């Protein structure tokens, strides 16, 4: 059974299946946003901060814009930016972490110290710098957040590699003569995937939230273009007077993260040969066919006496 097969098998379980369907729908919504959205996402009206109604299912914001339409259109930026940034962070971080954790010399030292430089750098200063150098836009956001979050991956991977690199099966591969890249990516990497998957789902959440924080620096999505993150930011100011906006925008993020988490969990399970063998409801022991006969044995065997 190949890992791919077993991954697909995991998707047949109800939780992961629901999560996958949700995400597929989300992608469809993002792709077809303009067609599906009942209103323009930026058209203002005098119907401000309205509650849910037949016309506006999720109400309106302080500009009188339809919240549902903004969520639908906003999904585009969020998926693109969060998924993009997380992908960048994952790839960058995993590579640096693998190299840093496995090379004992200068390279190892330098790569992890480089990670520390970025980590030690407060995101706000970093983001300011990036927006200055590259201007605003989705690409900048992906790059900025990708670099901001990569060190976390690097640390996670680094920590795991410290353990794994000492295991005998890694040494076995070394003895075979595998190149370093092979050892890193084919031998060690599979072992660090579980924590990386967790980190991926955490990072997706963080990037969605941070895109709101970045717009504070003028780096995020440019208003009035909607994004979930910026909607949360808008909802924050109104959270005690009209909580609906905050509630729905946080809600979609939570749901998305939950779906990603469930999928990550299923992937992890699918990739671990010891865990995937187990089907959800395994009979612990099978009923014994009734038996009466015991094989006759010479029970009365004497003990050997030793001098």
């Amino acid at each position, binding site marked *: 059974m190949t890992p791919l097969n077993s991954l697909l098998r995991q998707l047949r379980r109800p939780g992961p299946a629901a999560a996958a369907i949700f995400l597929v729908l989300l992608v469809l919504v993002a792709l077809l946003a303009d067609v599906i959205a009942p209103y323009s996402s*930026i*058209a*203002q009206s*005098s119907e*401000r901060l309205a509650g849910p109604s037949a016309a506006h299912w999720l109400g309106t914001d*302080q*500009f*009188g814009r339809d919240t549902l339409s903004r969520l639908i259109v906003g999904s585009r930026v969020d998926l693109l930016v969060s998924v993009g940034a997380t992908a960048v962070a994952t790839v960058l971080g995993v590579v640096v972490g693998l190299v840093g954790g496995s090379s004992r010399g200068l390279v190892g030292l330098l790569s992890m110290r480089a990670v520390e430089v970025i980590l030690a750098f407060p995101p706000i200063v970093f983001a*300011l710098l990036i*927006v200055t150098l590259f201007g605003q836009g989705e690409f900048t956001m992906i790059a900025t957040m990708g670099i901001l979050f990569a060190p976390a991956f690097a640390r996670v991977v680094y920590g795991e590699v410290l353990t794994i690199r000492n295991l005998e099966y890694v040494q076995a591969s070394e003895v075979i003569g595998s190149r370093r890249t092979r050892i890193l990516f084919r031998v060690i990497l599979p072992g660090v995937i579980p924590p990386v998957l967790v980190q991926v789902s955490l990072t997706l959440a963080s990037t969605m939230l941070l895109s709101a924080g970045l*717009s*504070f*620096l*003028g780096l995020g999505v*440019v*208003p*009035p273009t909607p994004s979930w993150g910026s909607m949360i930011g808008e909802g924050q*100011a*109104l959270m*005690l*007077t009209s909580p609906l906006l905050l509630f729905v925008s946080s809600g979609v993020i939570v749901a998305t993260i939950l779906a990603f988490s469930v999928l990550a969990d299923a992937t992890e399970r699918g990739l671990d040969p010891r865990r995937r063998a187990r089907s959800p409801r395994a009979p612990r022991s099978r009923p014994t066919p009734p038996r009466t006969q015991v094989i006759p044995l010479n029970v009365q065997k004497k003990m050997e006496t030793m001098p």
Partner: protein
Amino acid sequence: AGGTDGGDDVLLYGLDSDVPNLVTPQNQGSASMILNAALHRGLVQYDAEGQIVPALAESWDDEGSQSFTFHLRDDLTFHDGSELTSEDVKATLEYIADQDNSAKLYAAASGISSIETPDDTTVEVELAAPDAAFLSFLADVSGAILPSESLGQDEPTYVGAGPFQYVSYEQGSSFVVEAFDGFYGADDVQLDGIEFQIMADQTARDNALLSGSVDAVSFVGWNSYDQVEQNDSLVLDRTEGPFMYLVFNTTEDSPFSDPLVRQAVAYAVDRQGVIDSALAGQGEPLNGMPIPENSDYYDEQYADYYEQDLDKARELLAEAGYPDGFTARMLSSSQYDFHENTAVSVQADLSEIGIELEMNLPDWPTRLELGAAGDYDIAVYGTSGLTNDPAFLSEILTPSGSQNASYGYDDPKVAELLAAGRAATDTAERQAVYDELSEYVLEQAPIVTLAWRAQAFGYSVDVTGFSNIPGFLTFDSGYTLANTGLK
């Protein structure tokens, strides 16, 4: 020090920001104004209605708005017990008039040509030219008189001649003062002390007020107005002080160099929309000149000049040669929600008449720099006049206040009228000048005003005597702490 505990009447006050190194003559924001008003007094001050009333100077003679003779009260002392004499007044005014000291009142004080101190309680100030607004500038808390030896020192001494004296300061946390027996009006001071608790966050401040952990707070968040108003044990004391407006890049490259286009903008914007979306509904439309109602020079005719009229706006645009509109760069800042939201609201309005705005919403310092460099076509700004006197208009209509004014706008006629308004000594005469100015400015539309912003103090019903000085003077409300009491 001490004596702020026990059964004394100590006011717990939620201050909107920290002021780590109080330099009284400088502009350090609204929180510093509250502290300065508690610690210090100038020659004159504002009363609760915003009228100029005697402070350290018991009385004064005003000759043609050009030469002033102040008569100080007898036996004035600073908190450290030293005497306050005319020499201190002279030193303070000279300090303010020195450009190097970046004093808030520099512009007004720079008009001083000489200061004489014939005796300990008399100060004669001579201006180079008449300035009808001179006193109203001096009444600002940054005009406080300081011990001459403390001027220019690195560390604040907090020694002044105000109703309260310094007890302790813990950075980022609290600033404590106690009543000063030697204050000239000590008999009216009811509080034994004030503990200012520093609460930079709006929500934190609102919550502190609502939960009763402080007696009063500097500014209530717009979204909390209803909650405070509905709370029986709290008072929401509001005024419309600062205002929001649009500035333009009026240099040749910008489409807004044409007054017709600017007029079109003035007709296109939905001012109530700005209030509802950016100010949480807490404000008043500002359809004309930004002169507060309690000013002597308020004129309804010029206050309600522009109404939203999209057809008219489109006509004007077409007339200016843009029948299909154009694309332009909008500058605002995302650091302040209300700046950003104003921009978004205006963007939608202008889009109606074919002007598409590309948003640039950097953080505040960047916004200021871009503004000063003219790196925009149209921008949102908010300000408050230093005084209620229309003299403040120079800050938003002439290059002297470059960053508050439209970039590149330098109309000699406006400058002339502003100078005339300041030089005129007679109220009616001034009124005429300002009417002419209003007429001209509204027509030229170098700026387009949008809305008055509500500014409210919140306090417990047990707090007496404290009040929000209306209009631009709201930030000077700390003066009323001298008459504040606790039930």
